[in-house]
């Protein structure tokens, strides 16, 4: 038996060895010998080896250079095999094939040796990567490569840019190359007109090297040419004007992002409070339940975090929605027409839900993972970029809003909801099952809150107090926008968010929050029915 097992494992090991060897060899044979030299070369020799590799291997060498640059390139002492080695969380050294990325398993610390790089070599590698990217890279890589050369306008680099633009590039990259040429003209030319023309080509560009060159020029004592100086002044003014503009845009985006969060938090409330007239102080806890649902879903499917949010949205809707229906059936139904009591009872429920979450999970914040496709940011220009998670949440909030409006305006549930909210007795007389409609409406509002929780879990800490921090703001948004008016909630949410973010630089976050709250209190004194008061018979 034992022998049989041993035989099996040997067989497996052989198979594994065969499969490694059977991998397609992407490295050209001519390069192979140069590569092997890397393992024995001195630092100085490595430099010339890198040059040779770049010539012979071309774009295929990019992963090798990148690995070297990061300092991850190692070789196996006995086999001489090159590999990228990185430590994982538990401190084990994991080897990967440099070119294919194939897993080579855990490596013994003594069995491998690092290929050393120094600063001169790093610069050389960076340049090599830049050249490869510029000629062979994707559009984004080309742009990044040109942007990198702006910092270092050496003759070599300019020649490279020249050859790249002859090889044919997109207009955006060609534009950047022209900018680089203009910068060189400004630096090297001695003809005043040519330099002024170069400055004009540079004016309004937001790339940091342009700004630095112009600033140096303006501050420089040795510069005698007044026409050039004046042009540089003008160009700098234009640049700082544009930067300021994009700063405002960024502020606006942050405001809209905060507004989308407020909208998401308030929109469920706009249904339960605005349309049904029920004060639900446990609304924040519905949001919290949605966030915790996201957490649980991610625990259930750790392999596919990317899809977890897609699954979490309907799941959170169902969880929060059914809790909402339970609350409506169990408590709120008995308190119809007694708003102050409803407020107190639902507040009690919110305490129970908070404590339940605290007992089931923990009083600490939970770690909700942001999926790959939501991290990172979208750079619109060098000084203005928006993070994907905020952008997606903004779009998501709008989508939820549109869906909800459609449900209320177009579906039969929406028709019933509006009928019951306008005249309960008459709706009943017409055969609408008002109790059913109440439960469904409340479930819908709570479910939407749960969906909001999924989005919020990507922006804030998921803890038992998550909902509490949003409840007052949500009520303010609904009241500000006008009770019973979904559009008001939209406008209210976004204007409060933007106001908050524009106050923040001057006053600090907490004070901005307080000022907005106080202004709201004053506003409600002036217009108790909000921005968009309900008109007609249903109003009072």
């Amino acid at each position, binding site marked *: 038996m034992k022998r049989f097992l041993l035989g099996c494992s040997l067989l497996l090991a052989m198979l594994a060895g065969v499969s490694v060897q059977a991998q397609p060899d992407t490295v050209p044979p001519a390069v192979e010998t140069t590569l092997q030299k890397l393992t024995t070369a001195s630092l100085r020799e490595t430099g010339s080896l890198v040059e040779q590799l770049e010539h012979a291997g071309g774009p295929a060498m990019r992963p090798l250079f990148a690995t070297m640059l990061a300092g991850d390139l190692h070789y196996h002492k006995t086999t001489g095999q090159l590999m990228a080695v990185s430590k994982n969380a538990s401190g084990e050294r994991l080897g990967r094939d440099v070119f294919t990325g194939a897993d080579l398993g855990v490596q013994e610390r003594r069995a491998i040796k690092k290929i050393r790089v120094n600063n001169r070599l790093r610069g050389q590698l960076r340049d090599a990567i830049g050249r490869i990217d510029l000629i062979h890279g994707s559009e984004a890589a080309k742009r990044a490569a040109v942007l990198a050369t702006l910092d270092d306008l050496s003759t070599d680099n300019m020649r490279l840019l020249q050859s790249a633009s002859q090889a044919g590039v997109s207009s955006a990259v060609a534009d950047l190359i022209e900018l680089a040429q203009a910068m060189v003209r400004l630096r090297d030319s001695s003809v005043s007109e040519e330099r002024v023309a170069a400055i004009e080509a540079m004016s309004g560009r937001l790339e940091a090297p342009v700004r630095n060159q112009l600033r140096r020029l303006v501050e420089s004592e040795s510069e005698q040419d007044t026409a050039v100086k004046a042009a540089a002044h003008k160009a700098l003014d234009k640049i700082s004007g544009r930067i300021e503009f994009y700063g405002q845009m960024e502020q606006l985006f942050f405001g809209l992002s905060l507004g989308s969060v407020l909208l998401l938090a308030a929109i469920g409330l706009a249904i339960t409070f605005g349309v049904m007239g029920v004060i639900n102080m446990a609304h924040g806890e519905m949001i919290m339940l949605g966030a915790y649902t996201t957490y649980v879903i991610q625990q259930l499917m750790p392999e596919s975090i990317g899809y977890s949010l897609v699954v979490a949205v309907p799941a959170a809707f169902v969880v929060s929605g059914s809790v909402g229906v339970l609350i409506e059936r169990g408590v709120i139904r008995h308190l119809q027409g007694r708003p*102050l009591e409803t407020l*107190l009872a639902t507040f*009690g*429920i*919110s305490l*129970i839900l908070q*404590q339940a979450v605290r007992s089931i999970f923990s009083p600490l914040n939970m770690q909700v993972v942001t999926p790959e496709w939501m991290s990172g940011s979208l750079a619109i220009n060098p000084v203005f970029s928006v993070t994907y998670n905020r952008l997606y949440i903004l779009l998501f909030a709008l989508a939820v809003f549109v869906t909800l409006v459609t449900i209320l305006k177009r579906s039969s549930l929406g028709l019933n909801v509006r009928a019951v909210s306008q005249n309960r007795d008459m709706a009943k007389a017409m055969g609408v099952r008002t109790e059913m409609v109440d439960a469904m409406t409340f479930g819908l509002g709570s479910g939407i809150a749960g969906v909001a929780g999924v989005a919020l879990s990507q922006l804030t800490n998921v803890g038992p107090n998550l909902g509490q921090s949003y409840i007052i703001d949500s009520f303010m948004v609904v009241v500000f926008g006008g009770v019973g008016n979904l559009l008001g909630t939209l406008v209210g949410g976004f204007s409060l968010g933007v106001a908050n973010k524009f106050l923040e630089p001057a006053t600090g976050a907490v004070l901005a929050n307080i000022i907005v709250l106080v202004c709201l209190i004053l506003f*409600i*004194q002036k217009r*108790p029915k909000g921005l968009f008061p309900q008109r007609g018979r249903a109003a009072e």
Partner: protein
Amino acid sequence: MSAANPVLEKIASVFTDLRQPGKGTSVLVGVLLVTTLAMSAANLLLPVDSPLYVSTYTITLMGKYLCFAMLAMAVDIIWGYCGILSLGHGAFFALGGYGMGMCLMRQIGDRGVYGNPELPDFMVFLNWQELPWYWFGMDQFWFAVLMALAVPGLLAFVFGWLAFRSRVTGVYLSIMTQALTYALMLAFFRNEMGFGGNNGLTDFKDILGFDLQADATRVALLLITTLLLVLVFLSSRAIVQSRLGRVIVAVRDAEARARFLGYRTERYKVWLFVYSALIAAVAGMLYVPQVGIINPGEFSPLNSIEVVVWVAVGGRGTLYGAIVGALLVNYAKTRFTAIMPDGWLFALGALFVIVTVYLPRGLAGLLQRFSSDTPAQSARQDAAVDSDTDGRVSGREVNA
């Protein structure tokens, strides 16, 4: 059931007495005074190992409860009698507390950790060079008390004037009061405000020269609290039983009608709101020297809402109900958090739900049902509660 009935009726008859003018007051006042006096005597005169000895801890706890009872009465006066549900009364309580806290802070003098005779410890810690202007004069006890009353009173006046004049009522008003206390909480958490930020004011040494840790001071504070509670109870009772009180109840039950009859309802509401805020401030002032700390947590909306539950449990629209409710719920809280800390929020939440759904008139209402003279009247009373669409207690008489 039959065996329990006579006992219940007996207890109930005490509460019936409470509702009758004169007699009830003396019962409540008597019970309060006798209890606290007995406790004080037991603490000061009996030896520590005596079975009847009351620990200083208990004395302080009792003092704390009585402060809460006063706060509950403040909420009851506007909610139970005028139908204004304030979810921000904790703000007035805390402002009063901060006034007293500032005074006590200044009286520490150079005995602080840093030994600065002028600046409180936290200001030295923050590298402040001089006292902010609003701290001046707070070392004078009379001035501090004046400010501790004036600031919450003024805030209540401005807020009430703005709100009631533009006829903000019901739930809107409740949420606005909550936003008010929330905003204040955020503000007081900031170190730059000069109120000790997150940690608040603490490490008090003495009050008017008496050591705060001494048993005699604690007992004296308890007795003062009791006396003031009785005083507030009597004055509130006088107010709600006066002509003014009748108008206030009319505002609660049918504000529009009262307005049409020519009463300037908003004025009545503003003044009642200010009166109630002042009571809350007094409660806060008494609270701080007894517990020895005041921090922004007192502003948290949860605290204010808890007060509402005390009143709801005791029975709103009855002044004694507020006192009984505050004492009962807080006693339960102390016991509960000692036995199973996690359970308290469950219990509090359940209390909210049960009281609002099943006991809209609180314990007082429950006992009144037993003690009603005739079953018919009791049935009518229930019907009145059930059919009341606005959720207000439709008492036909003014309870006190």
